[in-house]
C-alpha cells in the first residue's frame, strides 16, 4: 500500500515539476509574443498618423501632428460666390505643430524616440526590425519584427496604410 502511495506521489511530483517547467517556458514565450504584438500594434497605430512618407529600412521615422494642436488644416471657408476664390486644400502644418517619431533597434530592444525626448523601449528580445513599402499598394508599408525566443526566432509581420502620407 505504502509502495503504491509512493509511486503515485512520485508521479504527481514529477508531473508538477515538469508542468512548472512547461509553464515557465510558455510564460517566457508568451512575454515575447506579447512584446512583439504590442510593439507591432503601437508602431502601426502611430505610423497611420504619418503626414510625411515614413522612411524604410531598419530605422523608420516620420512626422505626425501633435495631438494637442487645435488647428492644422488650412481649409478655406465656404464662399457663396459663383467663382471659387481658393480652389485648394493646403496642409498648413507649422513646424511647431509636428513631431518626428523614430523607431529603431538599440541592442535587443525596439525603441521609440520623439523629437526632444528620450528613447523608450517598446519591444524586447528583438532580432531584426524592418519597414518596407508594399509594392503595388500606395501609402502602404509592411512592418517585420523578429523576436528571439528560446533559441529560435519568430517573425511577426503586419501592414499599415497611411492615409495622410503624401
Amino acid at each position, binding site marked *: 500500500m505504502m509502495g503504491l502511495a509512493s509511486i503515485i506521489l512520485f508521479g504527481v511530483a514529477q508531473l508538477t515539476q515538469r508542468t512548472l517547467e512547461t509553464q515557465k517556458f510558455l510564460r517566457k514565450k508568451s512575454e515575447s509574443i506579447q512584446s512583439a504584438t504590442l510593439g507591432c500594434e503601437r508602431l502601426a497605430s502611430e505610423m497611420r498618423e504619418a503626414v510625411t512618407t515614413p522612411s524604410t529600412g531598419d530605422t523608420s521615422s516620420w512626422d505626425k501632428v501633435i495631438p494637442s494642436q487645435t488647428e492644422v488644416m488650412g481649409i478655406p471657408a465656404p464662399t457663396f460666390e459663383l467663382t*471659387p476664390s481658393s480652389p485648394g486644400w493646403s496642409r498648413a502644418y507649422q513646424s511647431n505643430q509636428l513631431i518626428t517619431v523614430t523607431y529603431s533597434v538599440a541592442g535587443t530592444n525596439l525603441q521609440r524616440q520623439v523629437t526632444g525626448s528620450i528613447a523608450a523601449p517598446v519591444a524586447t528580445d528583438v532580432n531584426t526590425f524592418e519597414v518596407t513599402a508594399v509594392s503595388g499598394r500606395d501609402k502602404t508599408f509592411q512592418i517585420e519584427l523578429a523576436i528571439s525566443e528560446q533559441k529560435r526566432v519568430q517573425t511577426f*509581420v503586419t501592414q499599415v496604410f497611411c492615409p495622410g502620407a503624401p
Partner: protein
Amino acid sequence: MWFYNVSKRSRTAKGMLLAEAIIASFLLLFAFIAATQLFDASLRWESSSTGERLAALVAERRMEDLRGWVAEQCQSTGFDNLNWTSQEVVDDSYPESPAFLITVNTTDQIENTPARPATGRVDPVPGLHSPSSTFYARALDANDDQQRNQEWQSFPYSRDMTASARLVQITVTWSNGRYEYRLVSLLTDSIEPAATPSTDFTTSPVVVSGPGSVSAGGSADYSAQVRLPNNQPIPDVTVLWSIRPTSGGSASIRPLDSSARTVRITRQSSGAIVLVAKVRYRGKEIVGYSNVIN
C-alpha cells in the same frame, strides 16, 4: 473481560486503517486526475491566448491591406465601382502564418437602428447618411423640396452616402477551425482628388447634363456629376445649384434628391440661361456650368 475488549477494538482499528488507506489512495488518484486536467486546461488556454493575439495581428494586416487596395483603386475609379468580389476570399493565408486561415466578407447593406415608434420619423435605409444616420430624415412627399425640411425649417434632409462605405468582416480561424477571431470595420471612400479644373473654370470636373432647351412654362431635369481625371464619376457628392446672373431668362430650381445631384428646372420666362453647379469635394470648391439653355 477488559483485556478481551481491548484486543477486539485493536483488530477492528487495523481493519479501518486499511479501508482508510484504500479510500485515501482513490482520493489521491482523483486529485491527481483533476490536477492533470487542470494543467492540461491551463496549457490549452495559454495556447489559445497566444493564438488569439497572433490572429488579431493577421486580421489587422488583412484589413490594412484592403484599405491600401481601396486607396489604390479609387485613383482610377469611384468607390461604388470597386470589384469587391476579387477581395472576398475563403481560407486564404499569408506565407508567414500559414496556420491562420483568412475569410473576407463584405456588404454594402449597413443596417441602422430603426426609428423610435410614434415619433413621426422614418426608418433609415441601409447605408450611411450625412450628417448622421441616427437622426435620419427625408422628405415624405416627392413634390416637396428634397433638401429643405419644411416641417422643422431646417437644412438639409439626410443625404445618402450609401455608395461611400462598405462593411468588411475578416474572420481568422486556426487549429482546424476550433478557434475563430473576427474583425469588423467600415471601409470608406479614400477621397482621391477630382480632376483639376482649368484656371478659368471653363473645363471642370463638375459636368452638368440635360436638354439644351426648355420652353417657357416647361420643365426638364438636369444632373451634375463630379469626375476623376479619367472621367470616372465620384459618388455621393452634394451639389449647390444656381442660375448664372448674366442669364437672360428666369427659372426655378427644385432638387429631386437630398444631395441635389438631379434638379428639375421650370422655366418662368424665355431667354438663355446657364445653370451653375457648385460642389465642395475634398476641401476643394469646384464649379461646373451647363451649356446655354434656351
